[in-house]
């Protein structure tokens, strides 16, 4: 622990030893993962430029065509260009999958911070609710929730947030309780730093990396689950291009047009591996063995 005197104020500022100060080299997995994710972001952002056709345009005279120079991945059962739908679906899956993991992170972190910081009955209530949610088969509840809330992006985000916030709450709460017992935080309290400042300057930076690593595995799960809900006929509106729905629609034609289901699945796996590599790389940095 380093104690450093701030120049003029004369107040003691206490800083934890900074683990990133040494700046270990960026792990290869992080680089590859970021590159994969980067490609997906570019494709989603420039979908209109990359797509070769209007993803919604139906040509019923040219249904279930095989891949060709005109239709790179052939056409689906309504004669829509599969490649263009795949490209546009990147927008849906990337954004909704990401938000479906981000919202629980925000809710969970906030609740965890409140529980850890204030303690007492607030902590008891939050922790008990967290225990209860954890004990339920939440993904089965997810189906029931989406069933009741209806299809669309908002119901999906609400349902995901309702079921996936618990691990973040636990993580932050534990981190705060641990930090409360640490010398430097005790010193900060003695030095009269306001609580908010202790939270933002000392506790959150320490838990951010762990949270991010967890988030990376959660975003994979959210993306896969989003596709799964679409596959089950829940989830997003039918007309919106989405990988899970493409797989589901291609299912009837598995025998002869196998690519219709195969390719969107491979794309999901590629995106998932991108996230996983980023998570792996961050975890390596977290352990400090870059």
């Amino acid at each position, binding site marked *: 622990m380093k104690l450093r005197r701030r120049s003029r104020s004369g107040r003691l500022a206490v800083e934890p030893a900074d683990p990133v100060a040494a700046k270990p080299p960026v792990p290869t997995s992080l680089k590859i993962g970021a590159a994969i994710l980067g490609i997906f972001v570019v494709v989603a952002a420039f979908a209109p430029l990359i797509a070769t056709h209007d993803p919604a345009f139906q040509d019923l005279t040219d249904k279930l065509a095989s891949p060709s120079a005109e239709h790179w991945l052939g056409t689906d059962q309504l004669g829509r260009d599969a490649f263009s739908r795949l490209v546009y679906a990147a927008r849906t899956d990337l954004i909704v999958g990401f938000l479906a993991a981000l919202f629980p992170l925000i809710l969970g972190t906030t609740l965890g911070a409140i529980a850890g910081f204030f303690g007492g009955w607030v902590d008891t209530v939050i922790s008990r609710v967290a225990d*209860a949610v954890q004990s*339920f088969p939440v993904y089965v509840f997810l*189906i029931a929730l989406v069933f009741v809330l209806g299809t669309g992006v908002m119901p999906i985000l609400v349902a995901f947030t309702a079921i996936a916030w618990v691990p973040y709450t636990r993580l932050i709460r534990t981190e705060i309780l641990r930090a409360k017992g640490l010398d430097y935080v005790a010193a900060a309290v003695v030095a009269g730093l306001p609580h908010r400042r202790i939270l933002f300057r000392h506790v959150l930076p320490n838990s951010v990396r762990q949270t991010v690593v967890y988030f990376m595995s959660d975003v994979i799960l959210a993306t896969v689950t989003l596709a799964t809900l679409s596959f089950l006929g829940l989830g997003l509106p039918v007309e919106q291009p989405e990988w899970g729905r493409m797989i589901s629609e291609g299912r009837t034609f598995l025998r002869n047009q196998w690519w219709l289901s195969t390719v969107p699945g491979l794309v999901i796996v590629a995106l998932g591996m991108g996230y996983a590599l980023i998570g792996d790389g961050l975890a390596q940095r977290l352990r400090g063995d870059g």
Partner: protein
Amino acid sequence: MGRFGFVLRRILGAIPLLIGITLFTFILLQLVPGDPALTLAGPRATEERVEAIREELGLDRSLPAQYVAYVGNLLQGNLGQSIRSKEPVTSIIRERTPVTVWLLGAALILSVSIAVPLGAHAARHRGGWIDHAIRVVSTFFLTMPPFWVGLMLLLVFALGAGWFPVGGFGETTAERLRAIALPAFTLALWIFPIQLQSFRSSMIDVDGSDYLQAGRSIGLEGLTLFRRYILRNATAAMVTLLAVQMGFMLFGAVIVETTFNLNGLGDAMVRAVSGRDFAVVQGITIVFAVAVIAINLLADVIVAALDPRVEIQ
């Protein structure tokens, strides 16, 4: 407070959870858009008829009174009836449960037989290239949407090679095993990575523990050490994990049954969802939730039997 006390405490702890489930499904029922009495009565029913149904269902009473009546029905094993087939939900559940149990059982055996040897291997060669390779492969399977894996297996082994039926269940045990093979394998591929990672880390924990050091220092080695000290402790951790994973497995069963047209509970749930058949969705949600709680309770009992230390925790 001995081990018995621990188990008793867990049983008592399950009661609020059960109440929570009934609250959850009851609130869901309130959130469903539309008037259930109107739905049941049909489009051409008279006002009096709708009113009569409302009274019959108890919808004219206050919410707390409705909740009490609802729980009363549940306790008598009455889960209502399907809007579509008019069949009692309980008989749908009874009919569908065996398929799901077969699927889960087979998937559990398969996944554990993949996860345990690989996890043990990875732990033994911790930090080496084998460990690394196993981690990459298991991550790879984690990113695969299970329904897609199922379709790919169907494409190759059922449509292509013709070794397995494309869907459905069988009558005889042999037929069933053949029908369940691909679905169970699909589910196993989805859940084994988490089991593997967890088994690997609990093996490493046990390996670094004091009692293992003690065991080694008194001259224990080889199989005795492995069986009595390592396996027993890692098994306790594994049992807990499997129970925790149960809810996730049930979600997997829903997906896999839909993919393979297996007429289990999950398939019934998805059909009920698309048919807006609320009583069935609700009934199966309750069955799944109660099953998860019961299995977790059972796991606690098993762990308490395996590991005398639980009473301290």
